[in-house]
């Protein structure tokens, strides 16, 4: 059984159909990239899976259960985490507190009436915080306010927050957007390490074709909201529809 499945997922904004009858299945342990030209519906697709947007039609099934009625925090609690395209961090808190919040979310659940209980009663939280920050190599900078980090580090912290919430499925929205070549390389190797060490299932939205073809087990190509091709990197590379969508395949 697939970890994540979408069935006929359709989202309309007025007259525009942003995702049109998208059926996809992501198996456990896979790295799946979703590519497509601007406006193809990639981000809309992710936003529906995390329940930020309500689909107009269709169903989303995660671990065999429909999550289409769930609240965003419930989806997160079930094990879907998202790293945002822009660094969505807690700017005035330190790097450590940023990760601590996410680790607490995973350890402690969505809400409890424990307002008189000291935070150090949750030892798993500091353990998870340290592990994550070491994984994204920000442990040395744990006392820095997040807003003082350079851009690349902010994006790494963003990924760290997503990881600290201990997901089974990680959705990454353009993790290397706006990064320098060095930062991009560091991020790619981070993603690879994380995948191997934690056995995460990844769904990646990415524009950089070098990364996509290097890292993915499978690629799904969207154009105007529809899946126009799906397959291994080799299969996608030779697909005429994909080359057409990308204006002669200049990137490929």
């Amino acid at each position, binding site marked *: 059984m697939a970890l994540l499945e979408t069935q006929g997922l359709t989202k309309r904004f007025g007259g525009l159909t942003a995702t049109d009858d998208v059926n996809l299945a992501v198996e456990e342990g896979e790295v799946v990239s979703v590519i497509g030209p601007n406006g193809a519906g990639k981000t809309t697709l992710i936003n529906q899976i*995390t329940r930020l947007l309500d689909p107009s039609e269709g169903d989303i099934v995660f671990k065999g259960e429909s999550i289409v009625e769930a609240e*965003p*925090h419930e989806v997160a609690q079930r094990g879907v985490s*998202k790293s945002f395209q822009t660094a969505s961090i807690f700017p*005035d808190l*330190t790097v450590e507190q940023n990760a601590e919040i996410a680790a*607490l979310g995973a350890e402690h659940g969505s*809400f409890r009436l424990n307002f008189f209980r*000291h*935070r150090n009663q949750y030892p798993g939280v500091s353990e998870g915080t340290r592990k994550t920050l070491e994984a994204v190599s920000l442990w040395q900078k744990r006392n820095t306010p997040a807003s003082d980090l350079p851009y690349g580090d902010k994006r790494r912290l963003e990924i760290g927050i997503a990881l600290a919430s201990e997901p089974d499925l990680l959705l990454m929205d353009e993790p290397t957007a706006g990064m320098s070549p060095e930062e991009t390389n560091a991020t790619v190797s981070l993603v690879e390490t994380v995948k191997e060490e934690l056995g995460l299932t990844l769904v990646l939205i990415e524009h950089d074709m070098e990364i996509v073809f290097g890292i993915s087990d499978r690629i799904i190509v969207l154009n105007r909201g529809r899946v126009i091709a799906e397959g291994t990197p080799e299969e996608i590379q030779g697909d005429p529809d994909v080359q057409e969508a990308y204006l002669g395949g200049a990137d490929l």
Partner: protein
Amino acid sequence: MSDESANPTDAPETEADGGKTLGGSASENTVTRLRTRWEGARDREVTVIGLTIVGVAVFPYLFARAPVVSDLLQGYQELASLMLVWGIFAIGFDILLGRTGLLSFGHAALWGTGAYAAGWASANITEFPLLVVLIGVSVTVVLSVVLGFLSLRRGGIYFAILTLAFAQMIYYMASAPLSFITGGDNGFTGVEIGSFLGVFDLGTELPSIAGTLIGTWRYAFIGAFLVFSVAAIHRVLNSPYGIVFRAIRENEQRAQFVGFNVWRYKLAAFVLSGTFAGLAGALFTIHGQYVPLSSLYWQTSGEVVIMTVLGGVGSLLGPLFGAGIYLWVEYIVSGGYPFEWIAPYWLLVLGLVFVSVVVLFPEGVWGLVGDLRRRVATRLEEQ
């Protein structure tokens, strides 16, 4: 407040100290060591509670009876109690404003309800001060759940407007339709507060040295609730709630996407702050033995916002000082000698104080204290 121990401005400093100590002289060593110990102890629960107890115990003496200081401040016992009452209101309000980042403009409804409920209970149910307070708080908690449930549907400015609207609704309800309970424009006059535990008349002085320091039983009663409030809020801020509130303030959507039920935490922040507003309101009744209709008016909501900002949003004890300064200007500067020349303009004085604090010390009076402390510490180490 322990989250402030991880304060970024402190952290690099402490590391630098460590390096310096190695090559430093003996006296430097002692200073650093004392300071490190202080930094460690500063935010611990026992320290915070201990310091609050000492502060509460010494304050009325300094303010109302000590030789030079009290002449300077022109303070008196009853004003000291009133400062504590508003202080409880403000530190509770800061859970919502400073920690969670929600500006409520309707906390008068909660404070006023606490006050009326306590007053009504004292006239109709029991004279025992503790029970009167308990009833005031309980009624307010119920109202906070309802108001929070309705107002938190919207964020930002809409939340502020909704809270204001509901609070004004309650004000008008109290002024006419419900005047058979509230006394309408005259306020609630039938307050009957008995003696504490049936033994100590709240108006009398404590025996011997305690009387000199603390003054009346009423002040001691209110002071005990202040200490309790500080301890309780300190606990809340160091529970998971503390960090979730901050997460919501900083980035609500992110907090939701790491799995927190943001809406419930906001409601929890609202109800917690409402609880302290109700407690303060009930104590206000015990303090004044009268509930004015103005306690429900929007101006009261504005006052607690000003006190909190003045003292320092997001600091545990700051709003206490904000409340103290506000009331000092309102009661002493407006009251004549030695301020006759400026008394008619006391609101202007308050405005100027407020503007200069906001412009010069955005972290409020408490932030200024923190700055000075750090500066002195750095100076000591440089010597």
